[in-house]
């Protein structure tokens, strides 16, 4: 046991005399340290000092997120110049895929923090706890994206999840929010149990929880048939846990309720950071750790992907609440990402795992920006309608605030995969990865489902632009009366929305540089 220095359990034993601890590469860990440090600063100083001026809590969060993202970018060249490595006794992977995930998470965190700042200030609850939890969740996500050991992965997962449970329930005045918190907590705890039991079975079969060591043992020892059952059961349970976290059908049932109930900025954190981290961990575990068993898990991924794209888009269409719609659309996006994973599965464990992993990496960063942007607009609209996010509250947005409606349109078209948006390139990437591996069926199914999905986004756009206001709110001269107040876009949120729109369109037109960056991620550490 002690020999397995990869796990954090061993780190706890550092103090024991005569034990040689693993080297800690402080610079490589710096993004993580910045995120955790900032959350501690917020918690401690926030508790000791009187309320800070408006925006300061969010400011600290944004600075931390930007710093962490920038550090991850600085490390990029270190990795591409050399080769992917592992950190802290193989506990964490230090490869471009992990950096990509870190950068995606930090970008999403910046957006969420800016939006939250405005939302919380408005409701007079601008407290440091929320931001501290954001940072903790992001740190958990970063750990998940880099975890090279199942136990470390579990730690990251729980760190993120526990923060999420609290955040879901953080709007104490709304019972829906409480309900969402409880639902998320119970179901999430349940799935964590599956996940943990899967790890246990896997450990029983292989004798290690370290992904690198698991692969090594497969490389050298052909597993006996008897162990196979244990191992396959472990893989199955792991995938249940993952499917829950990425919200893939049929483990998606919690998503609409939680997405709808949680405060909107928090929902955007679930949809971006939560999904990115879970997908990244899933990819690493399956492609790196269990590549030898790809024939066993690939069909499962196929079914999850097809079920997600279809059920997600069909159920999204019949919703009347925009947050619920977006919840189902996030299920569809999970499906598309799984299409990319299915493609990667064809060559999982090989030196060159094909276009699958880069397509997922690209999808994750594009999706993280689009989805946080979408929820930022939704949060602004909801704010002007006493928190209501049903379709009717989007009615006539195009007349009340064309700029906001335009931004929403860009994000929704990007989610639908319309050309000249990053969403299109992302979708093109995963579909092309699937076709390259000759998975024609799944590619076709995904594209057809995207047509159904497009209907959903069009519905929202239609409400925003084409449905006229209720007749009594329109004066004779055509100007709008009776809307609660003139819509003003707070500076921070507006800034983020503008940046997200710019990114979405820019990457849609000139995706070359980001594709090049994503392409490097194929080289995973182990």
């Amino acid at each position, binding site marked *: 046991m002690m020999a397995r220095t990869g796990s954090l359990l061993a780190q706890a034993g550092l103090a024991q005399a005569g034990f040689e601890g693993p080297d800690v590469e402080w610079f490589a860990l710096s993004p993580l340290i910045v995120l955790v440090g900032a959350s501690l600063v917020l918690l401690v100083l926030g508790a000791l000092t009187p309320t800070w001026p408006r925006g300061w809590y969010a400011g600290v969060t944004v600075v931390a997120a930007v710093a962490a993202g920038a550090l991850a970018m600085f490390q990029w060249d270190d990795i591409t110049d050399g080769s992917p490595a592992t950190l802290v006794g193989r506990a964490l992977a230090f490869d471009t895929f992990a950096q990509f995930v870190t950068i995606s998470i930090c970008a999403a965190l910046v957006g969420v923090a800016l939006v939250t700042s405005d939302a919380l200030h408005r409701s007079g609850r601008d407290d440091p706890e929320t931001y501290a939890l954001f940072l903790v969740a992001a740190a958990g996500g970063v750990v998940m994206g880099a975890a090279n050991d199942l136990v470390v992965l579990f730690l990251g997962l729980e760190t993120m999840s526990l923060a999420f449970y609290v955040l879901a329930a953080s709007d104490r005045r709304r019972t829906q929010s409480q309900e969402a918190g409880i639902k998320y907590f119970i179901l999430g705890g349940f799935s964590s149990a599956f996940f943990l039991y899967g790890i246990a079975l896997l450990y029983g079969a292989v004798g290690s929880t370290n992904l690198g060591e698991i692969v090594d043992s497969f490389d050298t020892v052909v597993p006996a048939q008897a162990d196979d059952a244990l191992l396959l059961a472990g893989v199955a349970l792991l995938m249940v846990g993952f499917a829950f976290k990425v919200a893939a059908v049929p483990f998606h049932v919690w998503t609409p309720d939680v997405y709808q109930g949680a405060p909107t900025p928090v929902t955007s954190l679930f949809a971006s950071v939560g999904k990115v981290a879970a997908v990244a961990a899933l990819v690493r575990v399956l492609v790196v750790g269990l590549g030898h068993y790809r024939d066993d898990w690939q069909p499962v991924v196929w079914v999850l992907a097809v079920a997600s794209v279809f059920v997600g888009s069909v159920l999204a269409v019949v919703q009347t609440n925009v947050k619920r719609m977006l919840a189902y659309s996030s299920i569809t996006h999970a499906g598309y990402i799984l299409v990319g994973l299915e493609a990667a599965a064809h060559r999982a464990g090989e030196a060159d795992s094909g276009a699958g992993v880069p397509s997922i990496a690209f999808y994750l960063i594009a999706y993280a920006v689009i989805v946080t942007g979408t929820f930022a607009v939704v949060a602004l609209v909801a704010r002007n309608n006493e928190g209501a996010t049903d379709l009717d509250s989007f009615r006539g947005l195009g007349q009340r605030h064309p700029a906001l409606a335009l931004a929403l349109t860009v994000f929704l078209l990007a989610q639908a995969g319309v050309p000249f948006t990053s969403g299109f390139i992302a979708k093109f990437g995963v579909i*092309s990865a699937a*076709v390259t591996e000759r998975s024609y069926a799944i590619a076709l199914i995904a594209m057809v489902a*995207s*047509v159904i999905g497009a209907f959903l986004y069009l519905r929202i756009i239609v409400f925003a632009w084409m449905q006229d206001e209720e007749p009594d709110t329109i004066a004779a001269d055509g100007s709008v009366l009776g809307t609660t107040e003139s819509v003003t876009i707070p500076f921070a949120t507006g800034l983020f929305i503008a940046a997200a729109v710019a990114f979405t369109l820019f990457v849609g037109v000139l995706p070359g540089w980001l594709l090049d960056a994503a392409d490097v991620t194929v080289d995973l550490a182990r």
Partner: protein
Amino acid sequence: MEGPTPFPILTLLVVVPVIGSIVTALVPKGRPDVVKLVALGSAIVTGAFSLWLLAEFETGEGGFQLVSQHQWIERWGISWHLGVDGISLLLVVLTGILFPLAMVAVDAHHDDKPYLAWLLLLEAGVMGSFLSLDLFLFFICFEIVLVPMYFLIGGWGYGDRVYAATKFFIFTMFGSAFMLVGIIATVVLARQHGVGETTFDLVRIANEATFPASTGRWLFFAFAIAFAVKVPIFPLHTWLPDAHTQAPTAGSVILAGVMLKLGTYGLLRFGVYLFPEAADWSRPLFLTLAVIGVIYGAIVATMQRDLKRLVAYSSIAHLGFIVLGTFAMTSQAITGGVLQMVNHGVSTGALFLLVGWIYERRHTREISELKGLQSVAPIFAAAFTVVMLSSIGVPGLNGFVGEYLVLVGSFLSARWWTVVAATGVILAALYLLWAYQRVFHGPPDTDEHGEPKPFAELTAREGLVMAGFIGIIVFTGVYPKPLIDRVQPSVDALITHVEDKADITIATPTVVEVDEPGDGGEGEGEHESSEPAGAATAEDQ
């Protein structure tokens, strides 16, 4: 042939409308005159470029001209690759002319600014689709066209406009879903079957890749579904009547005038050109569907009570002729098909304009609620007559040229289909003349005092626009040679390419086969059973 022109005229054809669209959107709301000026200005500049293109175009040259190619997404072998040949030239010019005319002819009934901005974006998308020689570039242009059209129908349409817009979007996107997978599969498979690297370059794939027969057929059908929806070919046509009827007048003009041509053009450029063997193999299917479209469209058009719906269904019939010509695959038939694309764009575009003006004046398009317009508005009626006759295909007007060439060309290679399709010409006369008779003849409507209800004559602006249309109609009808001279070399090059690639001879008269009893119906590919000897004779003209 000269080297590539230093002046990037094709790129400008795509970029100018985009810039125009952005500038239009940025003009402050309080300046409607500036909005109109900017939008119309960029449409006219684009139109002028397209005319310049017509002048620059080397007549008699079959290949792609004025090609401009720039790396775009190097990793995926995608480039900004534009080129024009005889098949796309006229469609580009048609696009360039039709947009400014449509903008001048009708004003949006509200919100000028977004309306014009969307129209310009639409123009850019259409231009890009016609000009691109890169599969990826083509796909995104083909796909982006949906967005402005969706907003135009949904925002400025009539009646059940959101339903129509959504149906249009979903139908077309459904087809595109197959095409996207088809495009990627084509590129991936082409890499293995001859091209050797990942490239979306249409010309390279068409020339270098040799797909196994069944692979080619699957790929062909992935493309064909998208185009069949766009054309639309018979069972996939149900979006068209709704979209056309509910669209704003300019939207209908553009939709019928150029956007449907994306489908027929796509069938030629990305179906027949890329997958000759598969296109040849599937001829019986497409010929049959084309003929069904001709007859079905005409019969349903006869039954319509709404004038605009009638024109919409007549489009299905006319496009049936184009598909017939495309899959007859003889030189005249395809040339006729290309001309018919342009002619249908002009005459149906003009018909939609006239119907739109009737609606503006009377606020109804019901045939039963209109009568005797001729006596109150004789000039209007005269314009309508000319356009209608052109749409029927009366000799001396443009409609005749295309239809005649299609029928003559198809008769060589697809005789019985042609025989059936020819009745469509008669049916066209039936529904259009009957509708004309009901709307324009007879005593005019009277108001409660017994006075004839007013119906304004063509205004000067409307008259000018109509004069433009009628000028093209008459010119093409009387002297189509310049058009044919430009189209035919490219069509011949295409046919040579098809014959080389698929190792077939196309213009096989069906006489040999049809004489055999028990071989009725459509199931057989004629070229297989008949001697190649009799074939080559009929092919070249």
